[in-house]
């Protein structure tokens, strides 16, 4: 199962709801304002690090670039994908839940 999160964790509770309920062995893809959750040193970094134990975690590169988040600021273990990588994830993981 693939989960996409497009809201900032500081603004909405979609990250928290996703992490609370997502079955193990799936993938989480951060897009749009959701990408702010992937930076090191925020109050949510620990939650995302915890998720990495049970899920693969991805972030959309163009949305990082737009917001000035350099890849060296990302939490270790998160993979950056481009738009075609997004499509590949949808194909690989089948069911998609968009946490809006």
């Amino acid at each position, binding site marked *: 199962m693939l989960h996409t999160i497009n809201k900032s964790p*500081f*603004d909405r509770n979609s990250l928290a709801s996703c992490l609370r309920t997502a079955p193990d062995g799936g993938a989480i893809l951060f897009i749009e*304002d959701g990408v702010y959750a992937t930076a090191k040193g*925020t109050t949510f970094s620990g939650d995302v690090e915890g998720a990495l134990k049970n899920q693969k975690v991805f972030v959309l*590169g163009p*949305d990082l*670039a*737009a*917001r000035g988040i*350099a890849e060296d600021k990302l939490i270790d273990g998160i993979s950056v994908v481009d738009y075609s990588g997004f499509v590949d994830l949808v194909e690989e993981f089948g069911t998609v839940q968009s946490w809006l």
Partner: protein
Amino acid sequence: MEDTETMFDTEGVTKNFMFLNRKAPYGTIYAQEVLELVLISAAFEQNAAIVFMDDGVYQIVKGHDPSVSGMKNFSPTYKVVEMEKEDAEEDEDIDMVWKIIVEKESMEARGLSTDDFIINVEVLGSQELSALMAEQDVVFGG
């Protein structure tokens, strides 16, 4: 009906405006709308406190490049806001006072420091920000 010149005559009238930027820059249109308001207020020489709190602090982070997503990088426009502030400080003929403020708690929760911003800011804790808010005539939130 009054002519437009009379309607917009603000000579001798100075009010305190606060612009409360609370949204991240590209996910919604709020940030651009508030920035437009700030620039308009400069034309009327009003006092302005431009505040970045919550996800609004991301608006002035260095290194935005939204071109791949087909959006415009509007963060350099904040340099214009900074210039307006400096002009107001240096020019004796300009009475307006501008402040550019980041709320400390919002900055620290996001792992950011003043070095991460494209403009010079004054960092205020929420209590100090609260006191400043109490001095305002008008607060625009976005």
